[in-house]
């Protein structure tokens, strides 16, 4: 449906229709209630929740965050109340907003936990889509599911059989070929891929000679990782047909636009939420303006429209 506005920001991901392509990234927006004082949450394209596991998780030792040049490291460790408490305590507020809610989920030990989680979420009308977080770097695993194409294919295939809800697979940048992993997710029936999760990182206090994070290592986010993320979106776009949700260091409209041009259908704002809670709404306005200024009617006409340098 084309809205009354001259520039149309609406997009589709599988069976999920969004009025605009700006989401908030998992883990950077809590369960949305934390941001209600600062903005009209109903203006967002969608909200992606903090990742939920089957059982409650306490998370990692402090310190859990540390600032780095143009970025930050985190090693939160998926602290969350578990699926039952999430449905009971957090979901009612999200439901009231009447905008698409994407629930991010992860497994602690066995991929079977994804099966149990999806079965439970599939029954809930207020859940619009499910994001499979198979790329969290803070679970002290030797290998993540999204670091192996076969493992990614197997997991997504198994989950796909259980739900008709929109499935988004979130990928790790800590791989040799992001395109290969994205293709595996597509072939297994994922409706979209979200990339990138954080880059593995470490920072050291040289005076005390100790790591700056309690968990020693964590995930790097913020503008420092943006060029890596843009390249990976572009690489995946050239290989797959399903929509890409681009993220990694988006701070403003201009950085969001880089992702669309590289091949993203939608974007997620992450670390920037910590610095300016209203930034997502500013980006929505900025995108409208850009389309108007460049006489582009639909945002979808911008996705992947990267020109060669000599054009």
């Amino acid at each position, binding site marked *: 449906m084309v809205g009354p506005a001259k520039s149309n920001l609406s997009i589709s991901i599988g069976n999920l229709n969004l009025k605009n392509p700006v989401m908030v990234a998992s883990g950077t927006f809590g369960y949305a209630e934390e*941001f209600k004082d*600062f903005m009209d949450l109903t203006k967002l394209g969608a909200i992606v929740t903090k990742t939920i596991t089957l059982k409650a998780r*306490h998370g990692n030792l402090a310190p859990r*965050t540390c600032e780095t040049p143009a970025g930050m490291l985190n090693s939160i460790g998926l602290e969350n109340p578990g699926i039952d408490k999430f449905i009971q305590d957090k979901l009612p507020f999200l439901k009231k907003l009447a905008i698409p809610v994407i629930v991010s989920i992860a497994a602690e030990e066995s991929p079977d936990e994804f099966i149990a989680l999806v079965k439970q979420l599939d029954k809930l009308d207020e859940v619009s889509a499910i994001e499979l977080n198979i790329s969290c770097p803070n679970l002290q695993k030797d290998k993540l599911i999204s670091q192996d194409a076969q493992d990614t294919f197997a997991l997504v295939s198994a989950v796909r059989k259980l739900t008709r809800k929109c499935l988004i697979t979130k990928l790790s940048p800590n791989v040799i070929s992001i395109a290969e992993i994205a293709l595996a997710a597509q072939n297994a029936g994922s409706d979209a891929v979200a990339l990138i999760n954080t880059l593995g990182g470490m920072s050291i206090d040289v005076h005390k000679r100790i790591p700056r994070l309690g968990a020693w290592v964590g995930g790097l986010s913020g503008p420092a990782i943006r060029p890596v993320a843009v390249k990976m979106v572009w690489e995946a776009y050239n290989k797959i047909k399903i929509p890409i949700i681009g993220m990694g260091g988006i701070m403003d409209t201009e950085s969001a636009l880089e992702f669309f041009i590289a091949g993203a259908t939608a974007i997620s704002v992450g670390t920037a939420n910590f610095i*300016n809670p209203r930034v997502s709404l500013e980006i929505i306005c900025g995108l409208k303006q850009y389309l108007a200024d460049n006489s582009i009617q639909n945002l979808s006409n911008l996705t992947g429209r990267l020109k060669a340098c000599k054009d």
Partner: protein
Amino acid sequence: MKTVQVQAKIISNKRFKENYWHLEFESAIIAKNALPGQFVNIKVGKGLEPLLRRPISIHAVGGVKVKLFYQAVGIGTQILSQRKSGELLDIIGALGSGFNYHRMAQAKKVENILVAGGMGVAPLFFLAQRLASPRMGSALPRAFRPRSLRRCAARNDTIVLIGAKTKKQVLCEQEFKKLGCTLKLATDDGSLGFKGKVTDLLKDILDQHKPAGLFSCGPHSMLKVVSEIARENKINAQLSLEEHMACGLGACLGCAVSTKGGYKRVCKDGPVFSSEELIW
């Protein structure tokens, strides 16, 4: 109570001494809502360096003005110290839980003890300000306030213990004096007041009598000792903690502290915690 993001005008930003600074900004809404123990989160500069906001506790409130007291030690506070009066500062506040001091209004004893280590004076001064002024117990209509409390406006029953490494690091003693607080000082080298730890002063006082409230802010190691002393004396202390924060809004779960009820967020569930609930 609504938390706001404002572009607040800097009224003044002056060096107090060495690398200690006073910053005053104007925000009617933050000034009105702020509670002792709460903090504001400031985007100190325009660029990416530093990327994150800086949480700074509220030092005092007067009218529409909010005063901060900070030490320019890292890149964030150094940039903040360069900001000029008249400029706008991107501030989110007031954040976090405050000290629970209204409860004391109903207690018979109104004497409160504040224990500060180094920069720990910053939030405790705001608390002393409220304890000293008739606004204390503002949750109660004046007629319902205990007689002892009405008297409190004229006679300040707050005892403030300040500890520091040397005389140079003893801060705000004049300000506390002006409020009429009883002041006791301790320095590690004995250059001012008692030679030793501020927590030794606390032990001595508690041996004599029990206060209505015990509040503390300072280095982690000091708070741990205050917590132990409180437990030995079977009283509860309210401790203001500090931790690295990414969002300051309770969303990222970065500033976790271990409590008997599991991990809690320093930014949202705190920064003030009861000594009885913390696990050291």
